[in-house]
Structures are given as C-alpha cells and as structure tokens.
C-alpha cells in the first residue's frame, strides 16, 4: 500500500504543478488544489480504515529500513489527526473560493501553491516517524504559513515577521532537542530512539533534550505565555488563510507534543520519572486564565477568537499532562473538536469580512438580520467552544474535567470552568452586539434596510455543514473514543 507516501507527495507535487501552470492559466489553480487535497482526504480516510481494521501501518520510504531510511508510521493517533487536517483543509477550499478569487485575483497561483504546500507540510508532520524529517516538514508548513499570512492587510507583513522570528526560535529549539537525542542515541527514527532511550532516562542530556523540545513545541503551538506571535498573525492574515491556519497549525503541534510524550519518550518518563506533570498542568491553568483575561480585553471578533485559540491550546496541554487516560482522551478528542469548531467560527468571521463589514465589535450591529445563516454558524461554533451539549466541545471538556477530577487536580478543573464562563461572556457579548445594535454604518455603502445581505452560497453551505458537523461529532463522540482514541492512549495508562 503506497497510501502513506502518496498522502504527502500528491499535494507536494500538486503545489509544484499549481505554481507552474498557474502562470499560464489561472483557472486551473483551484481545480488542481481541490484535486490534490481531495486525493489526500481520500487517502487519509483510507488509512484510518486500514488502521482500524488491520492495526498500525508501517511504511518505509524508498524501501530503506529504519533507522537508515525515513519511515512513516500510522497508528490510531495520527490516523485521526490526518483525517482532521485533510478534511479541514479540503472544506476550507470551496468555502473561501469566492474570497480568494476576489481579493487575490492576480495571485491565485501563488496562493493555492502555498496553500497546498502548507497542507503537505502539515500532513507530513503528522505522518512521519522520523524526528528530523518532522523538523523539515515543520519548516515547510511554517514558511508557507509566513508567506500566506503576509498576503493580508497592511499590518500583515509585520505580524508575519514577528511570527517568523518566534516560529524559527521554536523550530530551532525543537531541532536542538533532536540533536541532543541523536548524540545520545545515534538515531533519528522515533521508534528507534524510543527503544534506546529507557536505559538513558537518568541522563542529563536526555532530560535537556526533552525540556528543549517541549519548549520549542510550546512556542510553535502558542502555549501562553509563549503565544505572543499568534494573535497578530491570525488577525491580520487574510480570512481564507486564517480559517486554514487557525484550526490546524496549533492542533498539529499539540499532536507533535503528544507524539513526543507517548512514542519517543514514554508516559512513565514524562509523567512519573520527571515529576513535572502537576507543574505543567499548573502552567496550563495559568495559560487558560491568562488567555481568557486577554480575550476579554479584545474589541475585535478575530482578535478575540485568536485568544480563544490560545486558551484552547492550554486545555489540550493540560489534559495531556494530567497523565491519565481521561485527560489524554480529552486532549486528543479536543484536537479534532477544536479544529472543527475553530474552522466554524473563522469561516463565519470570513463571511462577515467578505461582505465588507469590519470585525470590530462596534461594526457588528444588525448582523442577525443581515447575515442570518452566517450568524447561525457562528452561534453553533460559539456554543461548541463554550461547551454546551450536544455540540462536540462539551464532550472533550467532559473528558478533560473527568481527567482533572481523577488526577485530583482541582486547579485545572476550576480553570476549565472559569474559561467556559469567560467564553460564555465573550460570545454573548458578540451576540448581543449583533442582535441589539442597529446596522453599522462605518463601512459605508450599505443600506440600513432590513434586507438580507448574506454571503454567497459557496461560503454559507460549507459553514453550515461544519456547524452541523459539530453536533454530529458530538453525538458520535463515544464512537470516536471507543473505536479510535481508546487505542491511541497507551494501554499502560489508566
């Protein structure tokens, strides 16, 4: 089965093809992107079923056995994340078609080439079993991300530069950690390293590698207070980019963290030997509260959403570091749930922006009358982020809180509840504006009549599908846990 290799190479070649043919004919860019991401989606679903029916999939690149060659290794954990990444990037494509073709009419070639290349990078990060290869793909995803973000408004290049600096620091930390591990083990293959490490767990170098890697990953995932790059980058990025980057990049980094904790190091080492578990969960508590307070201070929808992401990241870090089954289940489940709900709210924000409306709170008046469907999507995403059943956000929060109770970590429990309350305030503040205030006039050219001014169908339908998906995913969350996530958590963890 060649699916693991094709999964990454198809979008990689697709990106190349788009950048070449895009110069000749702009019309082929979108179909090419759609085809390459469609193939990736199909292959990742295929892989998920393969993992479900036949167990883990090993793939040796070019037939070279590890540790010499690069191996791809797909288990329940990354099979799930692969589907999430390819699904979100695929859905975002038609949803932003109109936006891209209006705002980047002359740059569709570069845009879609970067878009597809970035997805290739993200998929590669998730699928690879090689620690150094992961770094390379990390940089592919990051560099394309910088470029995409810089395509935005006037402030975007500066925000992107900020992201470049922080992102590079993060990636370098990660690379340094890999270097340390290579020095002590002589291997770059994750499973090879994992088999060699247990004898070296007392080594200071291993501890240094672990710590440096974690910090690097935390910078890349915007774990408060290492989050400073994220809000500006996501806010000033053009909407079609925000709704790709915001749901995926941080979640993929959470995946990398969990992969390091579980597969390269062992849960025993990470949670027991080091005795860091409770301390890191306390960091997450600080992060959740800090991000929530910062979110409260924002006066712009997209900025507020960016800080919501920062607090959601801390949910997942805290859940993973609780060191028990429920917490880790919650963390993994939240990767998929949060990706979907972030996509939902950012698509809604994109629709509002597409209609030429500002996203400052003062511009949101009258939106329920003007854009009822977009607002329905935003509301569904908001309820999921708050954690109202039966949306999926409720269920991952359920596992996270269960984990906190089982670990006796009541600080994390309180932080999660506090953050839910803050999210309630945040979103209902927005909803209040949209519901009570008259239509804003600040952006001129809009009639203040009651007529609907909804975004085009190609933007509304994907949004509503995602919104319905939030509920479907919620109702099927037990299936997800019992059939997939249960096996992603090591059997040794209770």
């Amino acid at each position, binding site marked *: 089965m060649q699916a693991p290799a094709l999964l990454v190479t198809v979008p990689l070649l697709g990106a190349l093809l788009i950048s070449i043919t895009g110069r000749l004919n702009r019309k082929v860019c979108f179909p090419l992107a759609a085809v390459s991401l469609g193939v990736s989606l199909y292959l990742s679903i295929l892989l998920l079923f393969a993992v479900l029916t036949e167990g883990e999939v090993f793939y040796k690149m070019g037939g070279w056995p590890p540790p010499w060659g690069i191996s791809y290794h797909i288990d329940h954990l990354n099979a799930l994340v692969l589907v999430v990444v390819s699904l979100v990037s695929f859905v975002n494509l038609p949803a932003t078609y109109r936006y891209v073709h209006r705002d980047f009419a002359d740059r569709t070639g570069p845009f879609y080439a970067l878009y597809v290349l970035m997805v290739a990078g993200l998929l590669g990060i998730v699928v690879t079993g090689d620690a150094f290869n992961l770094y390379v793909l990390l940089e592919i995803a990051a560099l394309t991300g910088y470029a995409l973000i810089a395509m935005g408004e006037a402030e975007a290049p500066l925000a992107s530069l900020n992201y470049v600096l922080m992102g590079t620091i993060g990636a370098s930390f990660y690379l340094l950690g890999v270097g340390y591990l290579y020095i002590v083990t002589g291997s770059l293959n994750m499973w090879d390293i994992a088999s060699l490490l247990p004898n070296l767990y007392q080594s200071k170098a291993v501890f240094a590698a672990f710590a440096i890697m974690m910090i690097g990953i935390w910078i890349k995932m915007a774990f408060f207070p290492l989050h400073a790059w994220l809000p500006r980058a996501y806010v000033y990025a053009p909407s079609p980019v925000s709704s790709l980057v915001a749901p995926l990049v941080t979640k993929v980094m959470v995946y990398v963290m969990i992969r390091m904790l579980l597969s390269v190091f062992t849960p025993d080492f990470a949670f027991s030997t080091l005795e860091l578990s409770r301390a890191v969960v306390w960091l997450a508590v600080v992060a959740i509260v800090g991000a929530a307070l910062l979110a409260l201070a924002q006066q712009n929808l997209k900025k507020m959403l960016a800080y919501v992401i920062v607090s959601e990241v801390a949910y997942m870090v805290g859940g993973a570091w609780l060191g028990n089954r429920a917490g880790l289940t919650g963390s993994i489940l939240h990767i998929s749930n949060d990706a979907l709900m972030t996509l939902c709210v950012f698509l809604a924000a994109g629709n509002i922006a597409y209609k030429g409306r500002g996203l400052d709170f003062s511009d949101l008046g009258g939106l329920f009358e003007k854009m009822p469907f977009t607002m329905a999507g935003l509301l569904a995403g908001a309820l999921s982020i708050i954690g109202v*059943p039966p949306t999926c956000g409720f269920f991952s929060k359920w596992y996270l809180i269960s984990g906190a109770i089982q670990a006796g970590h009541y600080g994390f429990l309180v932080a999660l*509840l506090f953050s*839910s309350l803050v999210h309630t305030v945040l979103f*209902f503040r927005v909803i209040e504006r949209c519901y009570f205030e008259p239509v804003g006039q600040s952006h001129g050219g809009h009639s203040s009549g009651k007529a609907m001014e909804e975004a085009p169908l190609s933007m509304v339908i994907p949004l509503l599908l995602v919104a319905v998906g939030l509920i479907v995913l919620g109702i099927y969350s037990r299936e997800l846990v019992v059939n997939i996530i249960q096996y992603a958590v090591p059997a040794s963890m209770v």
Partner: protein
Amino acid sequence: MPVVVSVKPFFAVFVSLFLVPVLLSCRSPNVREAWTFVAAAVKFLLILSMLPEVMSGTEIVTHVAEVLPGLEIKFRVDALGMLFALVSSFLWIVTTAYSIGYMRGLAEHSQTRYFCYFSLALSATIGVAFSANLLTLYLFYEMLSLATYPLVTHHQDAEARSSGRKYLLYILGTSIALVLPAMLICYNLSGTLEFSSKGILGMDAGTPLVVTLLLMFVFGFAKAAVMPLHSWLPAAMVAPTPVSALLHAVAVVKVGAFSILRAVTGILGVDLLRNLHAGTIVCVLASATFLIASLIALSQDGLKRRLAFSTIGQLSYIVLGVALLSPKALMGGAVHIAMHAFGKITLFFCAGAIFVAGGKTRVSELTGIGIRMPFTMAAFFLGAMSVIGLPPTGGFISKWYLVLGTLEAKQWVFLVALLASSLLNAAYFLPIVYRAFFIVPEETSHDVSIHEAPPWCLVPLGITAAGSVVLFFYPEVFLGLAQIAAERLFGG
C-alpha cells in the same frame, strides 16, 4: 417495575422542534399559527396517550444515542415527568391562543421568530421532563436557557439587553459553574448518571461531599430561583406577557424546581439524604426564600414584578416539598407544579389582558378596573385564590399536602413558615382584587362601559381560571401520578 421501549417520548419532545422549519417557511401569519396549534395539539395528545400506561406504573423509554461510555441520551417517562409534561404541554395550547391575541393586539414585531423560539423552548421543557439521566436533563436545561433568551429580549431595547444579560449570567453561569462539575463528580464516583429511586452515590458517601453536591444542585439549577440567585426572574419580566406566563411561571422556572427534584431524588437519593439529615439546610433556604420573596412582593407596584416575586416564593414551596424528604411533602411539591401553573398563568394572562386593553402595568393604576374588565378580574381573583391556597381552587390541594408533609416530617418550624407565607400571599394579592372592584376611581369622567381585551386573550384566561377550580374537585390525575412517584421513592 415494567418498562416499555417506544419512540413516543422522542416525538413528544421533538414535535415542536420539527415545527421550526415549518414556521420559517410560512408566509401568512394565519397559516403559521395554525401550524403552531397543530404541533401543540399533537404534542399534548402524544403525551396524553402515554398517561394510562404511566398511571398503571409502567415506564416508557426511548434510547437516542450513547454519547459517553455508559451514558446515553435517553428518555424515560415516569409519573413525575408525566405530571410536568402534561401541565406544560396543555398550557402551551392555551398560551398559543393567548399569544395570538396578545402579539396581534399589540402589533409586536418579529412574530415568526417569537413562535419559533417558543416551540423550541417547549421541546426543551418536555425534554427535561422526560430525561432519564442527568446528562440528558442538562442538555435540555441548557437548550431551554438558550431558546428563551431571544424571547426574554424580544423587544431588543436597552432594558431587554440588560435583562437578557442578567438572565444568561444567572442561568447559564450557574449551570456551567455548579451543575456541570457536580454532575462530573457524581459520574466519576459512580460511573452513571441514570436517575434511580435509591440514588447513585451509595450509602457510604460522606456528609461534606453530599452536602456540597446538594447545594451545587440547588443553586446550580438557578431556574428554580432559590435566593440569592433569584433576581433574574423579576428582570425577565421585560419579556412579552405570554412568555412571562408560560415560561416564567410554568415551563422555565418549574424546569428548575423539577431538576432539583430529580437531582435530589434520583442522584443523591432520599435515603442517603435522610441518613445525613442533609435536607434541612435546603428546607431553610427554601423557607427563607418564600418568606423574603413574599415580603418583597408586598411592596412591588409593577403588577408583573409582584407576580414574579410571588413565583419565586411559590417555586420554593416545591423545593421545600422535595427537601422535607417525606412522601406527603413530595406529593405536595409535585402537585404544586401543576396547581401553581394553572393559578399563576391565569394571573399573568390577566396582567397581559389589562395591558392590551388599557396599557396599564402598575397595581396603583388598577383602581376600579373590575368594573371595566369584570371577566378578567374575576379570573384574576380565582388565580389569586389558587396561589394563596384557598378552596375551592387547586392550590389548596397542594398546600394541604405540603402541610401534611411538614407534620409527617415533624418539622414544625417549616409548618409555621408555610402558614405565614400563605398569609403574606393573601396580603399581596387580595388588595389588588379589592382595589379593582371596590375602590371607585376618583375621576368619574371615565366611561364605565365594559372594555375587555380581545377574545383571543379572554378565552385562554377563562380556561386556565376554570382549570384552577376544576383541579380542586378533580385532582385525581395529578395526585395519582404524585402518589406513584412517592411510592416508588419511599417504598409502599
């Protein structure tokens, strides 16, 4: 106890949800309201059709989906749920008629939205009534909070905005901050959230834990408006009157009291609470609430505000009935859900009719109004009698059982509190009736011809007022249901 699996509860809950797309597609108000009647009637008949089985002690179950390991979204119709569902679905039909008169009489805006959220709210209410476990109940509880927000804030002005904010803060805030963790703690202790007549915690749970959980439930279900978490209810009176009538005298607030009832009897368990004597603290909270609320009601000039404070007090009767942990008190509390519903909805309908007919909202403006609106004020008198608990109205029955319950539990203090509160109820209602009928307005230039609200308003309030009286003579259905529930919980 026999259990039957059926999809009826599912449709009984969701028939009003299916109504929403129908309403949105209706062009003409007449068609829209016809559909609302159809859905309300279907809902009521579905629930009614399950009554004989439930009366014979059978429980009707629908499995919807297993969403967490060992935890389903599941409906189970038992005697208590049936009692509550029967009352709210019947009163929905009546309120729909009243809404037509009220909303058209005042030419309110966004009537389609209004009817949509109303039917959503009814789905959520019946969902709570039929929930088989705490998770399902929580789901519909939250759905109800969210569905009623646009109804409370219907006028979309500054007052509605601040009231809506308070409404959500109290109701959504407490449910997230208190009920959610309490629910998770119970689940992690026992691995289930299914309501069981013995409770799910087991008899060896410690006093601090049980008392904490009990208080988390009592305050977390803030829709029951136990003080100090009551002030959202007077604020919610900014809503159109039919909303105040059905939702803030019947559906929403009683969902709160009903949820407390379920958590106390189905999760914590009456035996456990009796052993630990944990009920007393809630009895004290409830008694304090109805005494203070009645005192505040005395001084309220806004008619709807006075009714709201009266509701806060009456809800705590139900909570008291539950917390006394004796069969008679529980029956009293359960039957009070029905009796108070008929009485209080009548009062709100009257308040709305007075507003539609003459724009009056204050008690001090009602001087001599009994002459102009004799029918409305007669109904008001009957409703007030029921809420005070005087025969021949239904309120007497439930209060009688509550009093018997305090005797049974040998809680003399709460008996005194109940009687004192009844006197206070009389003190804040009867002056309104007196003023309406027996004080002659000073400006005699007013014409004294009869000027009632439109018939769409009058007929519903006549029905509910008559219902209050009928329930005094024929309380068998509700008493029977309450009896079944009490026997199940307390054994024989």
